[in-house]
């Protein structure tokens, strides 16, 4: 297990986000925090559809303020990325089970987006109140960050928010990208049907068992039976959070990955969209899912990582074939490298466009492998000489790993692996490999090992 459950983190903003009459007119001004750049300035212009932008950002704020599983109000701020004509706001719920992203393309504004980078953005109570009141009749401006001149006036009060960022929250924020490439679009609903469906979800006394979204005849409905093609969903209150959006939205897309049990909900507006990714269970966050674990432990991306990273320049859609042309790497190696960069918080994935985008989460992620307790535990098993190979044939092997009062039996056969520990027995590999399997793989294929350092 990780030595520290959380890291002390200070959000530092040159001013508080808020609404009011500013130099260029009435509007909403979001403060960006210090990071690699000092309080970056990304955008300042008029919104074409203020109401829908307000609704989307409010929903994002709802997600980051909510712990859907325990009554524990979290304190983390969302993250904004500016790059190549798209402003993206990302957030992660306190329970680590809901990832939200608002994508605002250039068409959402009447000014250019300038500035490139990723930073935190201050979402405070007055700002939420302001978002509630945005409407399409008013001429509303949005500023993300402020220019140096404004900052240098020094008449604003610096805002500092000290929080404890749980390690699992940071990990989950990174690791959630690994799920999105596997999503497939399953349903596309016009707004009236989307609203009807979301409103039909049970309130208060929702089913304890998983539900399944399925179509019968003309309609989408929630079933209690698993049938072919149905989308499994739990914790329905996490989905209902998008209900208020249908007052102004155009349509809803529902995405799913049946193997991982995750679902994606993309509400599309005239300009812009908000995307929610929901974990398989309400009590199960995205961190510790081990999706990226095996890639981090072993894999063919090692040589590709550095050149791929060098090609990142805040693209809003990273074209693997373009990078291949520049680097002479294979697209497979590039994809693997991008997946690892995603797990390290250095790239996000947009299921709708089917591509990664460059963004760098404003946390210290150099030691991301250090944040993976299972990988650390696997290395410790090796260091303590608790893994004993019984048989070996190439990368196939049988091993015995000393546990607590027991010897776990690991079997590696090609890409498949089994173990006799309770973790593997319960999840059968659906939540990534257990530490015993990881340790055995590391032992059997040390040449493929990639360290964090």
């Amino acid at each position, binding site marked *: 297990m990780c030595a520290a459950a959380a890291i002390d983190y200070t959000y530092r903003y040159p001013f508080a986000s808020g609404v009011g009459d500013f130099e260029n007119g009435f509007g909403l001004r979001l403060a960006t925090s210090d990071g690699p750049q000092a309080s970056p300035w990304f955008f300042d212009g008029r919104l074409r559809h203020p109401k829908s932008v307000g609704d989307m950002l409010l929903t994002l*704020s709802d997600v980051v303020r909510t712990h859907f599983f325990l009554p524990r109000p979290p304190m983390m701020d969302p993250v904004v990325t500016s790059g190549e004509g798209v402003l993206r706001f990302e957030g992660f719920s306190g329970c680590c089970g809901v990832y939200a992203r608002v994508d605002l393309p250039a068409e959402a504004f009447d000014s250019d987006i300038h500035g490139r980078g990723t930073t935190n953005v201050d979402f405070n109570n007055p700002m939420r109140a302001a978002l509630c009141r945005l409407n399409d009749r008013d001429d509303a401006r949005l500023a993300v960050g402020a220019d140096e001149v404004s900052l240098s006036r020094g008449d604003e009060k610096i805002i500092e928010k000290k929080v404890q960022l749980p390690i699992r929250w940071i990990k989950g924020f990174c690791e959630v990208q690994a799920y999105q490439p596997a999503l497939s679009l399953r349903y596309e609903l016009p707004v009236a049907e989307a*609203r009807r469906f979301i409103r039909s979800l049970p309130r208060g*006394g929702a089913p*304890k*068992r998983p539900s399944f979204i399925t179509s019968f005849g003309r309609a989408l409905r929630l079933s209690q039976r698993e049938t072919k093609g149905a989308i499994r969903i739990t914790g329905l209150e996490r989905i209902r959070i998008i209900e208020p959006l249908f007052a102004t939205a155009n349509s809803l897309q529902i995405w799913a990955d049946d193997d991982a049990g995750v679902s994606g909900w993309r509400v599309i507006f005239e300009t812009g969209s908000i995307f929610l990714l929901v974990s398989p269970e309400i009590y199960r966050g995205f961190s510790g899912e081990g999706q990226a674990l095996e890639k981090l432990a072993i894999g063919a991306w090692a040589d590709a990582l550095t050149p791929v990273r060098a090609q990142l320049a805040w693209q809003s859609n990273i074209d693997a074939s373009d990078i291949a042309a520049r680097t002479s790497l294979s697209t497979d190696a590039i994809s693997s490298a991008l997946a690892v960069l995603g797990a390290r918080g250095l790239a996000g994935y947009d299921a709708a466009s089917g591509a990664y985008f460059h963004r760098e989460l404003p946390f210290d992620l150099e030691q991301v492998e250090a944040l993976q307790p299972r990988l650390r535990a696997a290395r410790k098993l090796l260091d303590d000489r608790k893994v004993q190979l019984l048989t070996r044939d190439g990368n196939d092997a049988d091993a015995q790993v000393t546990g607590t009062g027991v010897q776990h039996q690991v079997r590696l056969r090609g890409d498949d692996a089994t173990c006799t520990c309770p973790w593997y027995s319960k999840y059968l590999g659906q939540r990534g490999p257990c530490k015993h399997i990881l340790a055995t793989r590391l032992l059997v294929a040390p040449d493929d090992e990639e360290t964090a350092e």
Partner: protein
Amino acid sequence: MTPEQLEQFVARADADGLVSACASLEESERRRLSKFAATLYKEIDAARSKFDPETHKWISTRLDRLDRWLDETPPPRIHEQQAIAELAMLAVCPFSQTKNIGAMGWRDAYATPPAARLLSDRSPDWIDAWVEEKLKGEFKDIGWGALRCLIRAGVCKSPSVDGYIEHMASSAPGAWHRNDETPFVPLSQRLRDDPDLLNNELWRLFEVETVAFKYDYYSKKDNSDYETWPIALKRLVDEGVIDRDRLLDASLSGLTAGIRNNLLLSGFANFHEFLAPTLDERAARQRIYLELLAHQAPQVVTFALNALKELEKCGMLDASAFIRGVAPAMTCRQKAQPKTALTMLRKIAGAKDAPHGAIALAASEACSHEAADIHERAIRLIASIAKKLPDDVRPVIADRLAQVAPSCQAAANEVIASLGLNLETAPATTSEVPEGLKADLLDRAKAMDAKWRRLAGVDAAMEAIADDTFPPPLDLDSDDIPILSGVEAVQPIESLDELIQVVSHAVEAMDRVDDVERILDGISRLCDQKPDDFERVTGPLLKRINEGVSDMKGRSLVGHLLMTPTMLRVLLRAWLRKDASVPELHVTEEGVNAFWNARLSELVQRVAKEQSAPLLAAPTHTRGWIDPRIFVRRIESLAAGGMEAPRLDLIQGLLRLAPDHRAEALALAKSVKGRYARAIRWALGAADALTKKDADDGDIWIAAARGRRPRGPITELAVLSLPEDAPDVVDNPPFNWTSSHTRREQMSLVVTIPELSISSASKAKSEVDNECYPLIALHRNSDRWSYYDTNTAWHFEWLGHIWPANADAIMVAAIQSMMLRIDDPPSNFEPNHALLQTLFQVDLPISEIAIVAAWIALVSRDADCRGVVIDALIEAIHDGRCDSQSFGDVLARITDGGWIKLNRVRDALAEIARLSPLHALVVSQILDEWVSRQSALPRDAHAITGLLLETNTQLAVPLRDASRTVLSGVRGSGKSAKAAKQLLAIDGKSPSAARKEALLLALQGRIERGERWGAPSDGFDDSSASS
């Protein structure tokens, strides 16, 4: 100060002495004492409560060494000493230690408590951080009064964290329920006495989620001076202490702060109204009210509409702004908001120079609401101004009108016509029957074997199409029906490796109920396979089983919360280590558990001796069914191994025999020998006559009888002299049930207690040994269902596999269990949904008692049960099993009990009806039957008549004569009367496309069944005895 001196203050609980002594200490002196103070506190805390293993109680002791400082009697109690030890830590320790000190022990008084003086003297630089630490979490760790003392004394700043405001909201008013006699200071006075709160903190009550405006309950008779926040603030406003305008604005700002808590939002709205704003005050805030029309909380929209209504009455409403902003109110989930909005639009439309185009556009937003009566209102309004509408809005209006409910489409079409546009039919009346479907279905029907065509109801469905009637319900009570075609084959475990993995997974989390018997079967066949590494490989599994699995969700095969599967743990140990010892079982020895434990015990004895053999009762198919041919092969395999069929294994196997392949199995069974051979052949259909001697094996013959014929009397058993009223032995018991209710007074409310009593005439079950009579045992459980017998979903579902051909006893248990929690949400500890899984048996009839269970589930608040039954009913309608007359009749009888909530019936059936015209038609028939059985419509019958109107309009289906008689007698102008009138007007002379489609879908479902029945079955491997 020395450590000894500090210790003396603590020992004597001398707060004042400690405070005085610490007043002038330098920080360096404090630091020197900090470790001692912290250690002293820990020692006192440890001594304060200890667990006594002798008495199993927590007892309070003393820290004896402190007594050396005491010379008074009685000495201070240890908790008093602990309080002073806390003060000592506050006096000398750093923040890292003081932040964990609780401060709720401080008296919440206006006299400055010692701690406040102490902190004031010390003025540590961490005091603000310490205060914020105390304000974290739901329960604040510092007294409100004491905190205010610190703030007023300048010891700490007024905290900016939300917890401070939360604390003020809950603590400042004081407790309304008190025991002491001191005069109570009401909140308004407390606020006057602490005026800083009125200037600053008060206004944050409208920014932070607190209880201030959430709850307004208190008891005047307990404390007539108590004031809630609304009462206190209104008093202060009335007295001019608080600015009224500012308070009115603040209450509205709470509604626009992005707060999502519905109770709090209602609280703000109610408080605003409580201040009784004048018309001028409302007019000044009209812009905010208009913004609130788009609020996501319906009660806030209502609040805004009501406020704007007041302005409208006096001609102060900004009509243009209202028309522009009202659209979101039209699509609120409830009906109240669009109703009010449409009424206001109607009034505005009556004004001179009213912008009719904009009004019609706003009103037409209501056409996407879910309720038909909202559509009706919108249509009426648009119709009244249709002639005045500008040309550019007419197509938009017409497009929206085309989406209304079926019952409103006629009126909508009239309006569309009056707009001068071409009539557009609404999607619901447009036939979606693919071209050539009918021809395709007829071709498929012709290609079918006549036997299946008849049995599957295809002939009847084709005649129904020709006659434009609905086909009769299927008769599934036939021995010719190939049950196995409707279930899936269960793959037996094939290897030891697979068995170990399946068991390991099941110990952690059972995925499917079929895995239980797969595991029993696997162990039974493979128990003799013990390779050299068996102990090593299974070591972790055995350890896990021995340790026990904590299983709060009831998913483990052997979780410790489960009573019944203790024998499963015994079986696993017998397999893993040949340990056949059976510990004392804490289970009831009655009912189904007795049978289950005895059956497992039978297996344990053989497995412990590593005697491998096929398990007779292992299902070959899902839902517990066994292919009789495979069953016979298993018997032969046992005989070949020199073993007689184990008694309970045989009983269970006989009960699971599918009706398929009986003749073939009987032919195979000709050569079966042994004590039970005749019973086995008789189960398969042989004509052997029973004799009195067979009474020695009465349990076997009963199982054979019910394997032969699940329903109806079995007169052949009479020779065995069995009790005639033993349920499901000689005959299936009749289930006489009645629905009723009682009323009870609970805390000054009168509540209705629904009752559904079921009597089956079975006294005999207490006279026979349940262990060998599982059918009787099932009824025994259903009499007094106790979830202590079992409380896991997989075990509940497995009960339906004991006798898959007839699950009526399970249905009775489900009814009784669901009735106990009809208004409760679902529970992991009472997974009643699992009892309803037998409704998915696609080739079995749905009995009356199953229909009762279905209705109970549909009207309960258990979303799992409700969801399962909706799924089952959708399938049953599609495949023809749903007998609408029976469903309607049962619903009517349940309604007679006077407790059922018809809106729940409507909600469930509406969800089903919207899926297809066939589903709508069957729902219509169910409701039609229900209406026909009413002598007088209940008060909430509009829920039913409203849905019936929609389905019948959509399908152009008239009422039956009996229903027409009932509805013709409905008087008045209420919703039921209106719907009745409209229903009576449907003559059904021109069948709608939807109705035609429904009949084709009915035929399609029957053809699919017939094709499935007629398809060649999977090849039977004659050589296999273990699959």
